């Protein structure tokens, strides 16, 4: 079950959509025509996914919410009732959680919601992996710098320098990279 929010200028159209989503076991937590209170509604309703008409002004509000809650973004499904959607889908970065669907019929929306969520989760996993890799690389750089200082100051070999960092980390229950960062900051250097 997904908590879904619908933003559409056309209440009749979104009522049909709500029925279809409810029948499929989802829960529509908010349905709005977008008149300036979108932000409050998103905050209150806490949807898992937002379905929005591409011509709704509230698109800018949602885009900013994503910028602010970068670590916990929500998938957004955009739709338009003309061919524009098809073109824009190609322009929007693959994997980012904006998906444009052409038109909005009861039969089409359910598989699209499923695919959008699946692709969104896939993309989030990839992004997390990339972020982890970046942290690892940054950590390695810092540990190397700290080793360099120990080698210079204490006349240690590289292995001895690393062993010293590791021992300190273990004694204090810290990560090696954190010990290295502390050492560098004591030296007045930035990690």
């Amino acid at each position: 079950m997904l908590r879904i929010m619908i933003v559409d200028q056309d209440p009749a159209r979104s009522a049909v959509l709500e029925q279809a989503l409810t029948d499929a076991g989802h829960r529509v937590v908010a349905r709005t025509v977008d008149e300036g209170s979108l932000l409050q509604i998103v905050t209150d309703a806490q949807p898992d996914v937002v379905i929005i008409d591409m011509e709704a002004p509230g698109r800018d509000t949602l885009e900013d919410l994503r910028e602010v809650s970068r670590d916990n973004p929500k998938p957004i499904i955009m739709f338009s009732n003309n061919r524009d959607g098809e073109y824009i889908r190609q322009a929007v970065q693959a994997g980012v959680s904006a998906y444009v669907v052409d038109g909005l019929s009861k039969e089409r929306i359910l598989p699209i919601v499923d695919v959008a969520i699946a692709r969104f989760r896939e993309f989030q996993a990839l992004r997390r992996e990339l972020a982890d890799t970046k942290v690892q690389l940054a950590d390695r750089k810092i540990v190397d710098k700290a080793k360099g200082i120990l080698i210079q100051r204490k006349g240690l070999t590289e292995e001895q320098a690393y062993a010293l960092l590791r021992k300190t980390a273990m004694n204090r229950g810290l990560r090696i990279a954190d010990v290295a960062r502390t050492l560098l900051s004591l030296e007045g250097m930035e990690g």
Partner: protein
Amino acid sequence: MTSAEPPNRDAVPEKSRLTLGFVPLTDCAPLVIAQEQGLFARHGLDVTLSREASWANIRDKVAAGLLDGAQMLASMPLATTLGLGEVQQATVTALSLDLNGNAITVSNAFYDEMATLDPDGSGEAPVAADRLKQLIDARHAAGRTPPVFAMVFPYSTHNYLLRYWLAAGGVDPDRDLRLVVIPPPQMVEALRIGAIDGFCVGEPWNAAAVAEGLGRVLTTSHDIWNNHPEKVLGVNADWAERYPATHKAVIKALIEATRWLDEPSNRRTAAELLSHPDYVGAPAEIIAMSMTGSYRYAAGDAPLPMPDFNVFSRYAANFPWRSHALWLLTQMVRWGQIREPIDLRGIAHTVYRPDLYRQAAGELAIVCPADDEKSEGAHAAPWQRDGMTLGADRFVDDSVFDPADPVAYLLGCELHHRKLDPAELFGPRGRP
């Protein structure tokens, strides 16, 4: 301008039927005037103007090729080229459409709260953000929630100017208050229902809030940075490559429109045209307030003369200064939007194209600045350069931005939320 004779130096546009996008704001005026006065047609163009509901739509539709070009926020071509939002697409601008044009407005209740804390400052304008700081501190001490302010897009001049003004008064825009995005036409309603305490938006939406007795203007964006860049004509880089004569014809028509707009006697007509529901859809007298060179901070106040509130042509307003691009990029770094090391100068050079502007302006026999950059912030009054009058460029905190060293400038900004070390910004062309 009334001459029906076609300009004889125009090359035939490669593409003559164009769709250009705009957002309902007073400063979509150059596009509207070029259309209504037949200036696009004079340059061999058959233009359809498309009113767009959001800046995200403008960006996506230009990127997807559904729009040939559009009115964009001066920072948008940079952000889109860098892929800061949902779309990454090489975008260029060779024309600035106007300078200034925004203001910061707060609700009456919020203004009264400020006035209670500092009765001496009551009635003064513009207001410095120090007074906002007093209110924030008082609310914090009383255990109340911080204020909520709205602007129009994460990658907007409004966001950067509002943050600049706040930081100059010691207010941390990310910790001391909450910043949200609301589309311009919905700002007044959001203020009315109390969803927000204040906003930074372009006209006519400040004037509308004042006229309805809902709010009070604290400061204009001109007071934050005199003659700051505001809207530009943005197109895809590959579109500009593919249709150079078309691009030039659009630029020439828009330059002529801005010259028409800076004739004071035309401003009232412009306000009438803009008021049409297909364009801005606000009453002509509200649009006319800033357009005819006057400004009202509060309902009941007499309008004050403010001739530079909307500048479309004078002060070399159409020139796409690379120093403007560089300053906007420093703000994206300052507030943590740019998170990867990039070559700031390289990006400013690729996206802002004074070379293309000079070609178009040259054919209209318009004098151009000789350099692509200028120092920003050193002039408190209009000044002369290359035989032309440029506008004041003072910042509210009197600081100076030297485009030759954006890294030093960034290091000098004490209040920031950078996500990268400015030293990493040195690219192959990081320094001249």
